[in-house]
């Protein structure tokens, strides 16, 4: 009785530990085998980096690129926590600084792209929005990113540069939720990145505004000091920063550095 009880308890504990262990590993499960480059990249890079990854695999036969796309903040936290990544590409410099401050990058990060804000509206811009000032129109439903996430921080800078005080209907938790509110026509306008509008195709229109120039996000990339596959990682960084890489990023709506 007692022996079987101990066995059962042991099995239960084992199952629990396995479950916990699996959760802890799931974000970084790729093994550091030769020929695999693990890239941690900001969510906004998803389309362009996936394309660059395919290009890289074509140019380097036998090499495989695996991506972990997520919010830059959680990626930085993962790297600081010892996740075995080769390359880190962040959506702004302050997030990258959290990794460089811990001296986890090999050399200084390089800015490979920049992203500019735009106003997303319903297709055809039915409210005739032409500037940030127009966002203050009464009755207009406007959403911004929360100031604690990069797109909200950039929007705050742009609004300050324009001298416009917008009280939005909501501070969204990330740029994609802000865009979704416009796509579902719950909001009339949202301040998001150009690349988001580009990726949404004909579901939204983008209205550029001059103050966006004062709130441009720099996207830095770096090979990590403890990269399991350092040489291939360097090659991938080289591709991203090359003219070829810029062409792919430019197509997605990113600006050249």
């Amino acid at each position, binding site marked *: *009785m*007692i022996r*079987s*009880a*101990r066995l*059962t*308890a042991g099995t*239960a*504990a084992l199952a*629990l530990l396995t479950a916990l262990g699996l959760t802890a590993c799931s974000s970084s499960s790729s093994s550091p085998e030769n020929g695999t480059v693990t890239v941690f990249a900001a969510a906004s890079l998803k389309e362009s980096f996936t394309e660059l990854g395919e290009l890289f695999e074509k140019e380097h036969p036998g090499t495989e690129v695996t991506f972990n796309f997520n919010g830059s*903040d959680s990626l930085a936290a993962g790297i600081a926590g010892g996740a075995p990544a080769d390359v880190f590409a962040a959506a702004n410099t302050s997030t990258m600084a959290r990794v460089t401050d811990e001296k986890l990058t090999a050399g200084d990060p390089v800015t490979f792209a920049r992203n500019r804000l735009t106003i997303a509206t319903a297709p055809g811009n039915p409210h005739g929005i032409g500037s940030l000032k127009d966002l203050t129109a009464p009755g207009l*439903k406007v*959403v911004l990113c*929360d100031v*604690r*996430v990069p797109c909200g921080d950039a929007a705050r800078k742009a609004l300050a540069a324009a001298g416009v005080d917008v009280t*939005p*209907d*909501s*501070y*969204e*938790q990330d740029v994609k*939720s802000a865009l979704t*509110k416009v796509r*579902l*026509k*719950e909001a009339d306008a949202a301040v998001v990145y150009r690349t988001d509008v580009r990726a949404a195709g004909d579901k939204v229109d983008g209205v550029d505004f001059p103050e966006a120039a004062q709130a441009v996000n720099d996207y830095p990339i770096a090979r990590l000091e403890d990269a399991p596959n350092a040489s291939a990682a360097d090659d991938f960084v080289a591709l991203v920063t090359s003219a070829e890489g810029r062409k792919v990023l430019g197509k997605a709506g990113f600006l050249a550095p």
Partner: protein
Amino acid sequence: MTSTAHDTPRKARRPRAPGRGVPLALLAPALLGLAFLLVPLLALVVRAPWSDLPEQLTSPAVWDALRLSLVCATTATALSLVVGVPLAWLLARTDFPGRSLVRALVTLPLVLPPVVGGVALLLALGRNGIVGQWLDEWFGITLPFTTAGVVLAETFVALPFLVISVEGTLRAADPRFEEAAATLGASRFTAFRRVTLPLIAPGVAAGAVLAWARALGEFGATITFAGNFPGRTQTMPLAVYLALQNDPAAAIALSLVLLAVSVAVLAGLRDRWTRAV
């Protein structure tokens, strides 16, 4: 943890009365489960920024979020009671075709990810939703981005808890009391109001507490349907999530407040109204 596991078998082998010993096969997993639930809460208390706490908690933003959370959770619970108790009665006491399907549909929000619930609410009650567009056109009512939207999102996820809990109590309650009332000339509604309702009051209270707790902690449906604006739609869970983006200490402080409020209310209500359950 290890010491408890080693100490307990000795006790288990010396049962106080025949058949009253706690078998290790049950005790060990039970303690493991208990530890699994309590250790994260303990960690929250251990890692709390106690020295900064007074500063963190005196900011008006925290009290705005807490006040909004309490008002919305309580309103959502009241709303759930108004429609949930009759719905539970309908499911437990009447027989209509497709009743089991209706019951399954009622429990659906229990298993649905709350964010999906939020999207569904937008598609139904949003400004452009299948019902919402008429609300907007006829009455000028738009629900997303309003406090009313928060209440609806919380009701959507909390209502099933109340219905399930009350329906269970109704099924356990003896229908003969209602039948006796009916033979004495009471209408079915009078029997429900004067006989059934007092009989199931503890179950209703327990269901209300569950619904309130679920509403208080609601995040996904709220941020999706009602958005996030301080003082209007930013409840405590939303404030915690956003603080976590760049100020984990503030997030822990906010979590502690929410934890303290939940514990205080649940403990208080358990003693007073739900002892019988």
